[in-house]
């Protein structure tokens, strides 16, 4: 045996121990994140830096304290929560000088339903509840039949919501519907015939377009027919809608319409067919070049000049169309960014297997491109959600409008803090929805990315 013996056999287990206290816990956190920037006094320059950091830290703590305590004082300490007997609500709030909660309570209905008639509020409630259930169902990963529920939310739900909210029973001639249905079916038939080779190659190339347009027409007629069924619901004009209801209707229509429209426009802009490409570019650049306020204003003030004088074209509907087209132009550019990130090899892989253009897009390109641009898509959704407040300028009262132009104009509630309280509540509600969207998108991004990244 030499004096250098490397041989070794472990004879007892090393015990498992908790990590030393300076690598975890609140003290460690403080050291890592705050103290580490200000504990170096080894040279004059570093001393100056440490002192400056200390001052900055103290300053930020103080200002955070000032903001939070100020908020709490206004919202809670000086806030008015109930109205003493014999005093008006406005006077009670004026007395306390803080947040005017009774005002919010009194105007809650206005903020959520607008001027929707009282006996019919259950209809709005049903729409809200169905929406909440639908979204929760689709978002909750373990729920059964998520795909089916998602599909229903995009097809049946808007129809149900429309009928419940408006009362359905739209007027409209059955004759015209019949004619359009026949035209749609005929186009669909031509498409199928062209598929089978009737009419030669030229027609064959357009068989898909024929089928799509024909199917779309038939679908529109069907939905129109459902809308004109008499369900015995009291009709409620859209001018009575307001508050959160209008915010949701405008935002959700914009969100649901802008994604598919945006995808089609983005594909169009990259199309090999010059006409399709040019139309897409013109559409996108037109709508991107115009401010949303102008779009809304045009739709409400100018459009009637171009339509026959006695056509009745609902103001809310016009705003919806304007918002949907406007946001789809933005969405198109977001989606195009994603499409550009997908390499040529993916197309060639699809092509070499014999997949058609639309199959390549649907099965290979879009699933990858859309995941890449989830942050951009949700960004657009959030921007759109907040932009709905602009419908105020054409006399539609969304959540903000209901507070600012209706609730605050109520002479009974004139007092110095009602406005501040109202705006805080509105801001908070917007923030909750936007923050929810943002968090959900992050979760989804993580989940979808994990699938194919090492």
């Amino acid at each position, binding site marked *: 045996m030499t004096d250098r013996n490397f041989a070794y056999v472990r004879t007892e287990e090393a015990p498992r121990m908790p990590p030393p206290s300076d690598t975890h816990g609140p003290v460690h956190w403080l050291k890592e994140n705050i103290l580490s920037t200000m504990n170096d006094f080894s040279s004059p320059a570093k001393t100056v830096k440490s002192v400056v950091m200390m001052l900055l830290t103290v300053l930020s703590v103080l200002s955070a304290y000032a903001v939070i305590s100020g908020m709490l004082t206004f919202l809670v300490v000086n806030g008015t929560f109930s109205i003493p007997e014999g005093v008006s609500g406005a006077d009670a709030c004026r007395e306390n000088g803080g947040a005017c909660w009774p005002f919010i309570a009194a105007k809650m209905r206005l903020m959520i339903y607008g001027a929707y008639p009282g006996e019919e509020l259950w209809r709005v409630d049903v729409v809200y509840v169905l929406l909440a259930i639908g979204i929760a169902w689709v978002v909750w990963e373990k729920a059964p039949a998520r795909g089916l529920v998602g599909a229903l939310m995009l097809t049946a739900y808007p129809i149900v919501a429309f009928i419940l909210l408006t009362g359905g029973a739209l007027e409209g001639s059955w004759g015209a519907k019949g004619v359009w249905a026949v035209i749609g079916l005929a186009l669909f038939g031509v498409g199928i015939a062209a598929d089978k080779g009737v009419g030669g190659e030229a027609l064959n190339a357009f068989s898909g377009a024929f089928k799509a347009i024909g199917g779309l027409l038939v679908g529109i007629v069907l939905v129109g027919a459902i809308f004109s069924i008499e369900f015995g619901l009291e009709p409620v004009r859209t001018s009575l809608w307001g508050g959160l209801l209008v915010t949701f209707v405008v935002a959700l229509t914009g969100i649901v319409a802008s994604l598919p429209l945006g995808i089609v426009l983005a594909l169009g802009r990259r199309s090999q067919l010059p006409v399709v490409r040019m139309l897409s570019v013109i559409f996108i650049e037109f709508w991107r070049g115009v401010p949303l306020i102008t779009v809304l204003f045009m739709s409400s003030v100018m459009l009637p000049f171009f339509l026959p004088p006695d056509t009745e074209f609902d103001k809310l509907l016009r705003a919806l169309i304007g918002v949907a087209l406007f946001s789809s132009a933005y969405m198109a550019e977001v989606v195009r960014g994603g499409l550009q990130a997908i390499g040529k090899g993916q197309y060639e892989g699809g*092509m*070499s297997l014999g997949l058609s253009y639309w199959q390549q897009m649907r099965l*290979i390109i879009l699933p990858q491109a859309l995941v890449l641009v989830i942050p951009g898509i949700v960004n657009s959704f959030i921007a759109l959600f907040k932009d709905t407040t602009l419908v105020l300028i054409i006399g539609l009262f969304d959540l903000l409008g209901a507070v600012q132009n209706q609730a605050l104009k109520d002479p009974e509630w004139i007092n110095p803090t009602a406005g501040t309280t109202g705006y805080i509540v509105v801001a908070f509600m917007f923030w909750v929805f936007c923050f929810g969207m943002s968090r959900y998108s992050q979760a989804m991004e993580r989940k979808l990315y994990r699938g194919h990244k090492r």
Partner: protein
Amino acid sequence: MTDVSAAEAPSDRRSKMQVSDEVAIQITNMNKWYGDFHVLRDINLTVYRGERIVICGPSGSGKSTMIRCINRLEEHQKGTIEVEGIELTNDLKNIDRIRSEVGMCFQHFNLFPHLTILENCTLAPIWVRKVPKKEAEDTAMHFLEKVKIPDQAKKYPGQLSGGQQQRVAIARSLCMKPRIMLFDEPTSALDPEMIKEVLDTMIELAEEGMTMLCVTHEMGFAQAVANRVIFMDAGQIVEQNEPKEFFNNPQSERTQLFLSQILGH
């Protein structure tokens, strides 16, 4: 130049592989331009069913472009290409038909990263051939077993090694039950130890009688499997011959130079 007679079958393993007189691909006076650049000049090539053709030549000589014309990843401007008796024109239906009969493997695999290995393999059979999902999955597992990676079926392409990915790409093409396979430098993005596993898969395929066109610089593979080697330079087919002759007795100066460069060191 006339085709090498495939009938006088060389010795060893190649003798087992039969070449029929049926024409699989017929390229006649084919020309292609990229803008003003005449990239393929007067290409004439007849491929019989069961042939294993290796295409080689210097970089930029148009090898990729030529085999990509066969399934219309590139469009030719003059001459004709007939695949399985169907002429390649602008008719989309014909193009789709030819593409579903012709499998292709690329240098960079081009697997779909968002789909699992199994889904990569079943996608086209389900959507193009309209095969029921269950049946498509059985077929896919069969071919994944053949390329010796059935245990990776549930993984994503990003989790596999390069050699495994290329074998998946081969299996994915085979799931469409193609009659012709095109390979564009299938091993040149791989580390040496992975090249063998891919070449073995290709050799097995050749032994089963698949019609193959393969752009590669793996001369060992050419000697073992090919019944014909084509040398391209500057957009033309300069020489073609049976492998033994091609390597031992190259006729054209350009071929000699090329061979001395790749075999010389």
